[in-house]
């Protein structure tokens, strides 16, 4: 799964879901950042990032996620994460991402809590 490298977007009425697959490093992170920027510019300030198919993240990936949180904060938007492994959830809490974004077990609950 880590060798697959992909980003899928699912746009709803008032929200959008970005699903990543592969190692969330600079390369995938930049793609994610670009997609998030486009969605925010198009008025989607309620975002869900589904990391179920991303089991590995490095520090650059984390910094890119922080940037997305900050960009959404500027627009008074909301970001929820879902599909995190137990380690990722602990990492997000430790890196303070969980302070500014919600963490939910699945996409459905992440969307419902936007």
């Amino acid at each position, binding site marked *: 799964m880590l060798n697959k490298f992909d980003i899928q977007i699912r746009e709803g009425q008032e929200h959008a879901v970005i699903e990543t697959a592969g*190692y969330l*490093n*600079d390369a995938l992170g930049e793609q994610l950042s670009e997609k998030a920027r486009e969605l925010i510019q198009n008025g989607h300030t309620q975002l869900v990032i589904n990391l179920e198919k991303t089991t590995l993240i*490095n520090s650059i990936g*984390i910094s890119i996620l922080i940037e997305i949180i900050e960009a959404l904060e500027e627009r008074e938007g909301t970001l929820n994460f879902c599909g995190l492994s137990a380690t990722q959830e602990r990492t997000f809490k430790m890196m*303070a991402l969980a*302070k500014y974004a919600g963490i939910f077990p699945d996409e459905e609950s992440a969307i419902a809590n936007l």
Partner: protein
Amino acid sequence: MKDPSKSLGANLQTPKPQSTAEQTMERLIFSLSELEHLGQTLISGHTNFNHSSKTYLRITLGTLQIRRGAILRYHPTQQNLDVVAVTPDEVFPPVPVEPDELTALLQHAFIENATPPESLKQFFERSAKLADVIDIRLWVPLKIQDEFLGMIGLGKFLARDTLEAWEKELLTTLAHQISIAIAYSQMVEGIQSEKFRLFMLAESAPQICQLLQPEEAAEQVVHQAVSLLDANAGALMLTNIDQQELKMNYAFPETLLERTTGTDSGNGLVIPYSEDASTSQELTSKNVLKSVVTEGLPGHCPPESDTLFGGRNLMAVPIPGRDGDVLGILIVGDKEERGGSITAFTDEDVILLDSFAKQAGVAIENARLHQEALEARQLQAEMEEARKIQENLIPDMLPDIPGYEVAGHYEPRGPVGGDYYDCIALPTGRWGLAIADVSGKGMQAALLMATLRAGLISELSRVRNGVGEEADDTTPTHNPLYAEIADMAMTLNSLLYASGTEEKYATFFYSHLNPETDILTTLNAGHNPPLLVRKDGTYKWLGEDVGGIPLGMFPNDMVTNIAEYEAEHVQLISGDVVVYYTDGVTETVNVEDDYYDEERLVEASIACKDEDAEGIRASLHKAVMDFQGEADQFDDLTLLILRKK
């Protein structure tokens, strides 16, 4: 607080314009207020300068009453200036900065765009597009001491051609604040990165130590190492100490080895590291990996010397085992930076990976031990099953043969042995006595033994047993029983050869007893020749001269060419004793490493020949045990005694 750059337009509509002093005061108050706000932002956890740079630009332009401008942030590894904030909002490519230009930029507090110093002319040409669009008039280098951090580009000043002295002082203060923000951001980014790495190290180490499957442990070790080091690739190679080889165990990404040249690809990558494998001192990734194993120290390989992974910047550390051996090496490749550039691994990276490798060693050994324990449990269960099978193959009681006594003894070395004996009543009133020694131990041996026994019983139920024809004619070609027994041996050979794996075979000795004539017809397939001890104390070895090769060792057509199975017979008389045995008897070793041997067997057999069969069995067993003394028993011990009353 109102933005004074915006209030300027609003002021035009007000009936009572502000005085210059009032405007200046308002700009200063605005600037101070915004700086305080930024200070709060800086310490509130929002650390990303690229994000807050727009606010810094807005404050700067507002304070100085300038409509257009840009903030550029310098990236040392990429050696360029990234346009992080610009008014009007537009995207500009990064502006490269040459090293000598850096020195020049550090020497100026302000640079007029129209009259750049000679040393910066080329830099200004490269930034011309940005300068044109923004209509940049003045550049302010951002720096703290000798560290260049970026630049502010300011557009046309409203209602004036130059900045006043106090405005330049204010601009210097703002530039300093922005420089601090960049430095702080860099520092926090570094701390965050280290915090992430230390957390991941603390988090991942116990996790990988809990993984019980070696494959899963290897995969996680590589993935965590790649993540910890911000690398793009990683691999785990394990040592084979006996072969003095490093073998690829897991590589990430899967395509890592596709670029491998000059050697095996995929998981087949093997690097011999013995001293005589290669004495080349050339700096290649292969030699670096070898030295990591042989010297037990971390190693680096620059991209231009990497011939294994397609030109990557590599770092490798040894994975230590509990007993000090090097279990393998952990390799990471191409440390990435924000923006996609590849940078060199640092000394701190080496320490981090080395620490992780120690945990990886524990994880790999734990997984191996678990695997071994599982295999041992599986083997134990298999042995138990095999023991049950074998218990059913060895007769509990031996039958009464008219005019004869029979006694058997079977003592396996472990839970499951490879010996077999039997005494089978034939429909014709004859008796078949068999003894065999199956190679190997455990389930395979038990199954081979079961196959042999099933085949033997099947064959004995089919053959005519040479009824009425075996008595007198001793010429093999004219004795139907000889032929039948030899055919049976060929059938059993074929059966075992087809069912057994390589190295699986059985030595086998078969005796066909006619209790009416007391003729014992025998065939030997590679077994220890049984001992016939006569009443008068003389003895002879049965099947010593006409033995064939063990069953199942070769296919029938080869057996025909090598040594055909041949039968012979012997006439028994009252008091004769036949001692059948397996090599566990004659190869019993005492504490002085002497073999019990055939000579002692003859001696002991003659000594007890006048006892009944059970007494002979007990005496021979005691003789062997007495000889063995405190020494270990290495093989199954089997005896079958046939005595003519």
